[in-house]
């Protein structure tokens, strides 16, 4: 396994984690901006 392949696996794993995190926020906050532009009063915004 060369260094490029290792980097690809790491990026892939991070992408999967990001998807899970995004979906979780989307379902919990029910807001498409998933915290980035949302100004709703919401405890998840602080996280």
């Amino acid at each position, binding site marked *: 396994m*060369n260094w*490029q*392949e290792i980097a690809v696996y790491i*990026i892939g794993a991070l992408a999967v984690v990001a998807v899970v995190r995004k979906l979780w926020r989307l379902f919990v906050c029910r807001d498409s901006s998933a915290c980035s532009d949302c*100004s709703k009063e919401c405890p998840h915004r602080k996280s």
Partner: protein
Amino acid sequence: MRLSELKTGESATVVKVLGYGGFRRRIMEMGFVRGQEVTVLLDAPLKDPIEYHIMGYDISLRRKEAEMIVVMTREEAAKISETEASTLIDGEDIMVEALRSSHNHITVGLVGNPNAGKTSLFNTLCGRSEHVGNYSGVTVDAKRGELRYKGYTIEITDLPGTYALSAYSPEEVYVRRHIIDHTPDIIVNTVVASNLERNLYLTTELIDISPKMVIALNMYDELERSGAKFDHEALGRMIGVPIVPVVATSGRGIEELLDRLIAVYENREQSVRHIHIGYGSIIEEQLKDLNNDMRQHRNELTAHFPPRYFALKLIERDKEIISLLSSAPHFERWSAMAERARTQIEQALGEDIETALAGQKYGFISGALKETYVAAEYKRNTFSDKLDAIVTHRIWGFPIFFALMWFMFYCTFTLGAYPQEWIDMGIGWLYDLVQGGMSPGPLRDMLTDGVISGVGSVLVFLPNIMILYLFISLLEDSGYLARAAFIMDKVMHHMGVHGKSFIPMIMGFGCNVPAVMACRTIECTTSRIITIMVVPFMSCSARLPIYMMIVGTFFKDYAGTALFLLYLFGMLMAVVSARLMRRFMFREQEAPFVMELSPYRVPTAKATLRHMWTKCAQYVKKMGGLILIASIIIWLLSYYPRPKYDNDMAEAPNYELSYMGQIGQVCEPIFAPMDMEWQATVALISGIPAKEIVVSTMNVLYAQPGDQAPESDDELSPSASERIANSMSIPTAVAFLIFSLLYLPCIATIISIGSELNWRWAVGSALYNTALAWIVAWIGFHLTQLIL
């Protein structure tokens, strides 16, 4: 925190007492004043009342009274001191410092009629860029912002517009609930200077609930220009509320507004006094007994409103107030008294109670304005009237509307093509740079074919999105959108929905999520459900890149018109679906159409550019977030598994054997009747989280390692574009466009539908849209085959 949240044995220091005059005074007389330490001695077995120790004696309070007292524990004080970077160490001083700091924190609720400019005021005060528009119901949710002014931190909540505080519409209930739950220190009541009489109606309702209030007399420049004379100081003294003229869009009067707001908070404002709106001898006579009885048992009432307000609302049979009081021991007696009073008032006045109360309130306003306001001579045939005669004309109204829509899409395509070219060149340059600068390997392939091709193919449409939002912003801010809703009213009635439904539908051209939320302003439940269900047929800006990609490849010579027809087709499908829903699911008639036609206003460059900038920033952020992640995942799934990476870069990835290829081949039969290849099938499936991903997936799947940079006049890299053109016939392209237009909305929209209605509707919407999309795409495919 509130005193009621303290546990037995815990101590805290009193910060402030919320609530209205009489209650507040009584609690403060008991010793609950700022700086006093209070300890919880005992919770009664049923958690009510609670016994406290304060100023050397024990006192018991009901839980609902304790809820109105704001206190601070030592832990909270230490936290505040830390965040304020205090150098003080001594415990006492930390508390003093924290108390001073918390006293200088003012919470403000921004209320007012719809389209009174609350959000403009909010944006100016807090330096925010929340969406504003020249029509009712732009704000459907509370927005919170903060500013610092003269040592005070002012926390402002922008609330949805409301005409009154009864329980008639969801916004009215929402605003009143906010006042109950959050008890803002000050209410800033935004009143439109050019429409005083109607706007002051809400003021009379607010006076009834006795909050600390300041009136922001917005759009004061319009009143000055009209030639009307208004002694706002005199009216302020008369109703006991300071009135400050402001122009929210330019910032005029904002400092005075903040100064007066602080003066009211600090009880320094001279004009503040509590008055009662007089309801005439008959109503007052009937109100008196109930009011007195409630006063005697005021500990059974919540401390948010005075007894007189509760008495009035009981007589009005206000559902929310009835439910709030239903647990009170004397509720049965009060209900009977209220019913008796209601019957006697209605018999004596010969009209129902709502009409009688509204008449009295308008009588009060009219009397107050008679002494302070001289209206300008009413000018007919103003510019607004002349323009309305043309744009809402029964014959010309429709062609003008459709011509404007066509122009919007024409400009979106043609004007957007130039900056699109430059971005395309930039992306091509970056592609070459990475391709030439890195050694061959999977990381290089990921960066070029996954990240740069995937994200770049969507980013390239940013100028088109900007132009589309510029037009939507101009339509909203000028006031034309409300006129469009007016002329479409008859069509909407034929569809079986409300005229107001047209506004969320047009907003859907931008993004379906706020459009679904904007449906809250539709009072009629069935119309609201139908509108929410058809909003996804309105092509959002995320679908624009798909259209641009296919239209640019197959119908380049008449792209503007093709785009316009696509959007029109979406509207047609919305009409058909709404008609079917009204016919088979909701047979009852919709409520009558009430839509305000506010005067035309020249959209300010600042507001328009801010709106455009916000939307574009969101689009770019999406590129760096969801689209980037999706592009990487799509690339990974289309690149792996590989038999063994042997460093031979001439070897093209075997897409068909990849995970993505396997998924595509499983799904291929779904679109086989429309001659779609597996790549197009996978692209459509990948668009479920966000529609832009369809474009990035197409580009990743149709691209090959070693592609040259895209040519300036193509939307995709040449080989990808050519391969799409080679793999799709024109009928397949038509089917692809129709399916993209109609199939299930993105996850965010589905979630919005679920939260506005319920999950059954959300799932129903996804299934219905997808089934309809397939059927119509199939028909479109065969019809095009016949025509060609």
